[in-house]
């Protein structure tokens, strides 16, 4: 860090420029897994690549790691062009989705493997193994074989194996997907603390928006090999760059109502019975209620709105503090604060300037 500050230019931990990856499919069909990606991650930052399965996020990670060769574009690590360099020279460590521990080696030998590959002398190897094992709380497991470990333990071993090389960048490919729901929550927390502790730039791939929003300093949303938006979780959620991001992030997703050549978007939690929206600049609309779900204290109201645009099915999420009685079948006046409305081009889906909506 200090060295780079002295140099005057803070080199990015990782930078991808114009990355394109084309796979040759059967019968000369081409698949563009990456379609011109520009993204960079800062020193010590937690960058999350978020997208649906098949969006190219894992390909991007593998290209950064050096497991895949980009068809076009450049990868820089610590400001250095690494195209064509094998993973071992890139000083990246990657934890694969399957953890990919060596089944025939003990935990100790698994963690030792990268050190041996770098010809680290024995006494140093032992010290580093101990250090990594203690950091991850697995000193008791060193003598075991991977098959004797639980999913969570395997993940720790995989992390320890990645850690001993003291990499410049950590690449994590859906590290939580193999764990059950309960373990996932605690491990997520541990991963974040672990990264804070070692302070290494981390790029984390997931399709789970909760993980992405919870872990990321910044989130990069990908779809179909293209980068849709990069920003803080707050940016991504509040100021989505297009309708893909708007509907992919958020659960339930943002409601989109077509109004002429625009789409009017608002989050379910901002659509409330009109009497609960005090703003003068609110936009009201009648909601015909079809169904109400009661989920963890909130009421999710399903129905169709009219007046502000074409009749559209929407979802409203009412917190427990909203006590307005609602019953399926009735039509109730709902409203959204004016500053919560987002506008998109109906044809291309990209964000546009606000439009005045009366009433």
């Amino acid at each position, binding site marked *: 860090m200090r060295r780079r500050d002295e140099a005057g230019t803070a080199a990015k931990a990782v930078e991808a420029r114009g990355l394109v990856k084309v796979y040759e499919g059967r019968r000369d069909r081409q698949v563009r897994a990456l379609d011109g990606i520009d993204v960079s991650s800062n020193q010590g930052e937690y960058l999350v690549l978020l997208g649906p399965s098949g969006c190219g996020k894992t390909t991007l990670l*593998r290209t950064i*790691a*050096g*497991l895949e060769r980009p068809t076009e574009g450049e990868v820089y690590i610590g400001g250095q062009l690494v195209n064509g360099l*094998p*993973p*071992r020279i890139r000083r*990246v*460590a*990657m934890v*694969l*989705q*399957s*953890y*990919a*521990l*060596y*089944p*025939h080696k003990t935990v100790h030998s698994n963690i030792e*493997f*990268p050190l*041996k*590959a*770098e010809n680290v002398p024995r006494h140093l190897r032992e010290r580093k193994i101990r250090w990594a094992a203690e950091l991850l709380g697995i000193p008791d497991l060193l003598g075991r*074989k991977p*098959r004797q470990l639980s999913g969570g333990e395997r993940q720790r071993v995989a992390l320890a*194996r*990645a850690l001993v*090389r003291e990499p410049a960048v950590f690449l994590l490919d859906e590290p939580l997907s193999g764990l059950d729901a309960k373990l996932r929550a605690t491990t997520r927390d541990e991963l974040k603390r672990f990264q804070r502790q070692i302070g290494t730039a981390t790029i984390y791939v997931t399709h789970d928006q909760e993980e992405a929003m919870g872990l990321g300093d910044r989130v990069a949303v990908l779809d179909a090999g293209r980068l849709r938006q990069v920003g803080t979780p707050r940016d991504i959620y509040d100021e989505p760059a297009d309708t893909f991001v708007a509907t992919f992030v958020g659960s339930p997703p943002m409601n989109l109502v077509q109004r002429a050549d625009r789409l009017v978007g608002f989050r379910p939690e901002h659509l409330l019975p009109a009497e609960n929206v005090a703003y003068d600049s609110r936009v009201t609309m009648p909601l015909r209620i079809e169904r109400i779900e009661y989920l963890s204290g909130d009421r999710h109201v399903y129905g169709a709105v009219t007046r502000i645009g074409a009749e559209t099915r929407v979802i409203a999420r009412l917190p427990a503090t909203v006590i307005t009685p609602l019953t399926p079948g009735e039509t109730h006046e709902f409203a959204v604060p004016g500053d919560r409305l987002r506008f998109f081009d109906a044809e291309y889906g990209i964000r546009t300037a606000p439009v005045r909506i009366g009433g």
Partner: protein
Amino acid sequence: MSGTRARAGDRARLTDREGFLAWAFLLPTVVYLTALVVAPFVLTVAFAFSRSTGDAPSYRFAGLRDFRTVFGDDVFWRSLLDTLALTGVAIVLVVVLGTALAHVLRAGFRFRRTVRTLVLLPWTTPVALSAISWRWLLGSAGVDRMLRAASLLHGGGSPLDRTGPAAVAVVAVHVWRLTPLAAVIVMAGLNSVPHGVWDAARLDGAGVWRRFFGVTVPLTLPVTAVAGVFTAAITFADVAVVRVLTGGGPHDSTQVLPTLAYLRGVEGGDIGAGAAASLFLLPLFLAGAAVVLRVVRRAEADR
């Protein structure tokens, strides 16, 4: 059965009875194995302790007489060494070449499917047939004539008539024939290795050799061992290659135990001695195979 009374006519059919089904499915195999494996084996053991000859096949117990005959035969000891050497060399070459071939066949290239099929041909061709082809190629008609035409070979007989080259030819044909089998077995083993492990090894900074010897070899050791056992079993039990290619010659220099057994027992008429010779290696092989398979099982338990 007693609790819920079945309705009339709802009787369990014969095919619902697992005991019956088990026997019905097993019976063909049992009959087949008894007729073609157990019976000949028992007969061989019996003959090894008999005075039976081709002229007087009636059974008369002879104790260890046949074994004494065999052990007194210089050719037997030479054949024994030949068999062990042939098997040992074949195992090493077949396993090494088979592993290499397996990796080649797994790589992505054009016409891979076609090449895979073609590569298997030596294994699918009947042994006697391919041995005849090789005899023709290596013998007077093929290689020999070419070498002479190019003035690279003078005088003497064809390669198959010379002691050293003949032995090399026997090994070569076995290796040529069994390498595809080993390749297919090792390929299956490679396919069962979770792919991420190789990625992990690359990420961990391991170079080509470390990836191969530190990851691939240990992970495919069980199947490789199986390929080795198969090679051993097929090589040292084989009569056809030696019979057809060299006939055991020149001067019994390429004789192996099975061909010797055939020579003494069938052609020489001393059935007892032939049986004794052919039985000699069995305990050794069984012990070897048992050890290897046990190691394999232990290695597999790690998965």
